């Protein structure tokens, strides 16, 4: 079924590129067929955030592929500049959408990054390594982040993670789902929800809103207790450990009798989709609701204006056409796509920590429209928690000099904590 979406009319479907148990690294980075699949047409240049930032062709997908290929073929020696240009890539995958020759850039980039980390050509910061390690212990992370949740709930936290919100400090999403399932007894399709590592430990209110919206719309929600982080964090950094996490999630989700596995963060959904390929269909919760149908919210004020930004891993990773228009209409707000909604905001998984200056410049250009945007309040809505953090940094770094709220679209559909 074709859905009308906020960007087009393609059906949003998770794309997968590997079989269960088969990590993409099985394709050698030196695989000449992969590296030569680029025909050098240059269509990727104008969608690449780092090319647009620097005007340097080496800092584009076509340029990087050329450097990797020449090095793999022994025509270019290992060079710190190759390492630099590789590290500059945001990993937004916009080039994959623009590529007429279907070059699997994301797969090649992931392989090269793993190789660079393994050989010491690139070293993620200690903070990133620690964060990646912490993500593999969800219980520990939830406990460690308890103070963060408490401070956020009281509105006392400032900084990158201070996107205002009211996360439950103690009750887990799994517990909430069981409680609401008992109370409302939905009878519709049955779904399993990925709660994620950072989402559950810091942005738990988004998970809670997801559960409430689904159950309100007569969807049965189960939250497997034995699930773990999707592994996207480790993949972004080129660190080991993603395969073990993917294996754990295959055990947790693989054999469930559900109509779909849902994710409410596009990056996590993209990673889980690849891990569960062949066993479960992983879908973005908003795409699922768009097809399932959704109860619209009614708003008294018509002054608010929502600007919708489309996460890269939704439109370029999962190849979804956008966020369904019926879902956005159901928020009850006036909404429109943010300018250049399909372009990267600079978050890129861990990019805002690895290349803060680039990330800030990319965001500065993209967020400039908010300074003159109409609406009271102005709400920037997206569907990825890392993009939310990035957009919020436009306020904390004074890139945007007027107040605006950052929300997940699912929060705009939330029936509220009293549901």
């Amino acid at each position, binding site marked *: 079924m074709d859905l009308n979406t906020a960007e087009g*009319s393609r059906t949003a479907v998770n794309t997968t590129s590997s079989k269960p148990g088969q990590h993409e690294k099985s394709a050698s980075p030196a695989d*000449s*067929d992969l590296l*030569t*699949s*680029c*025909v*050098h*047409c*240059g*269509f990727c*240049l*104008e969608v690449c955030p780092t*090319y647009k930032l*620097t*005007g*340097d*062709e*080496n800092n*584009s997908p*076509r*340029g*990087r592929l*050329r*450097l990797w290929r*020449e090095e793999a073929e022994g025509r*270019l*020696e290992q*060079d*710190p*500049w*190759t390492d630099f*240009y590789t590290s500059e890539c945001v990993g937004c995958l916009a080039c994959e959408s*623009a*590529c*007429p*020759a*279907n070059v699997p850039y994301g797969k090649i980039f992931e392989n090269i990054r793993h190789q660079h980390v393994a050989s010491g050509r690139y070293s993620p910061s200690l903070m990133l390594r620690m964060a990646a390690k912490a993500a593999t212990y969800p219980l520990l992370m939830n406990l460690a982040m308890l103070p963060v949740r408490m401070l956020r709930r009281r509105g006392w936290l400032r900084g990158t993670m201070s996107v205002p919100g009211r996360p439950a400090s103690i009750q887990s999403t799994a517990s909430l789902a069981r409680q609401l399932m008992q109370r409302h007894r939905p009878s519709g399709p049955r779904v399993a929800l990925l709660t994620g590592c950072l989402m559950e430990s810091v942005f738990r209110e988004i998970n809670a809103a997801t559960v409430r919206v689904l159950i309100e719309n007569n969807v049965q929600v189960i939250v497997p207790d034995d699930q773990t982080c999707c592994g996207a964090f480790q993949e972004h950094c080129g660190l080991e450990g993603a395969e073990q996490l993917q294996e754990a999630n295959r055990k947790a989700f693989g054999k469930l009798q559900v109509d779909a596995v849902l994710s409410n963060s596009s990056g996590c959904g993209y990673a889980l989709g690849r891990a569960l390929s062949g066993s479960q269909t992983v879908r973005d919760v908003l795409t699922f609701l768009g097809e399932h149908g959704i109860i619209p919210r009614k708003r008294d004020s018509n002054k608010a204006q929502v600007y919708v930004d489309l996460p890269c891993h939704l439109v370029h990773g999962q190849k979804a056409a956008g966020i369904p228009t019926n879902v956005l209409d159901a928020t009850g707000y006036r909404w429109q796509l943010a300018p250049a909604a399909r372009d990267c905001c600079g978050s890129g998984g861990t990019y805002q920590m690895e290349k803060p200056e680039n990330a800030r410049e990319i965001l500065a250009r993209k967020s400039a429209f908010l300074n003159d945007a109409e609406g009271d309040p102005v709400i920037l809505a997206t569907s990825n928690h890392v993009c939310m953090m990035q957009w919020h940094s436009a306020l904390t770094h004074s890139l945007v000099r007027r107040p605006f709220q950052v929300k997940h679209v699912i929060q705009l559909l939330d029936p509220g904590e009293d549901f």
Partner: protein
Amino acid sequence: MQPSGNRVHLETTLRNCVSRGRVLTSPAQLAGYDTDGLGYKEYRPDAVVIPADTDELIRVLQSARQLGVPLCFRGAGTSLSGGPVAAQGGIIVHTSALRAIRKISPEGFWCEVECGVTLNQLDEALKQHSVFYPPDPSSGPVCTIGGNVATNAGGAHCFRYGVTSNYVLGLEVILLDGSVHRFGGPAGGRGRWREDWKRFMIGSEGTLGAFTRFWLRVLPRPEKVWTFRATFPDLITAEKAIHGLVADASYPVAIELMDPRCVAMVENSPMAVGLPVDSFMLLTEIEGPAALVDARVESVAEILRNAGSRDVVYSDEAILRGKLWKARKVAGGLMGQLSADFVVQDAVIPKRALAELLQLVYDEADAAGIRAVNVFHAGDGNLHPNFLFDSRKPGELEKVELIGKRLMQRVVEVGGTLSGEHGIGNDKAAYMPLVFGPDTTRLQLAIPAVFNPRHQLNPLKVFTERRFTP
């Protein structure tokens, strides 16, 4: 390639020329500039400069002249003819930072843009004023106006609107000595020059000077567009349709044709649109005021039906029109998926010779074991045979080059020429003697020699004789 001592001097000199721009000199900074859209031919530059503004570009040109180093200019590097590559080493000047749209005059129907502006960027800006810039090469999302003017680029809709030269009112050129000249301007004409120098500049492929700014003519945006798609069982019926369309008063803006080999390639891919695999597919469009074009829809459909098509489909709705164009649009990318390399020729032929030339392409390619598909601008006889090959396999490139040579020989014999819109670059330079005899070549070479006597600007392009001698 410069000796290492000279390279250090080159780098130091260039760094003195630019303060806000970039100078790239490490091997892994140069490798990204080894090639253009003709990805299998590589030439390593000695340095790449990305000037931040025209002043920096002027200093780079003056320094290159003093150093005696070849120079070539590069926009998006989408050329399919080996134009913006350092065929004789030296400096590549990448104009990616010069991308301001300086002025749009909807009343005067002109705009002023810098050379690095992309066609899509310009179209987005012009859209707000209900005007458009007609040349539309397929690389529009990324190619730059500078490259378009340098190659006198065309596109599908140039059947009616003509190529780039019809839309350049004026241009600013920086010569090798750093002097800045303006030929023409918003009002067109010759400016302060006796001769129409801007005509010399358009299509000169970077051999005369650096283009930095243009004044371009724009037209009112068409109110309504109808797209028609039809398939034909053979070339005779397809040609009948083409002749009917060309002569019809509805004056189509584009007439595109895909041969059965290209149709089969699309239909055997995930991009299939449901065309009969052994057919020729024709696309045509009419556009203009709604009342006028609506009245012409049936007559165009009738031409296609009368010629022998049984599946004429047409629409004026944007999404459906996109679907009708889909097979044509995906063909180029599919070639990239199917083959490590491909080369596309750009010959222009009298339409009466179409059947003969297509057969020649098939015969030569089949005999050499090279896959060939044709998708081209049939309305203006601009043939685009695409040869799919793998340059890593010994002998394949040579076979493709031999086919290209034989094809070009016949193209010239039947009254055609080498290039309609891609330019000559270094890919087709060897074919130039097929078109120009010794006397004409001497005169042709005299023109760039006026601007840079030692062929320092974009050497080895257009004419193989244009070798830079320090």
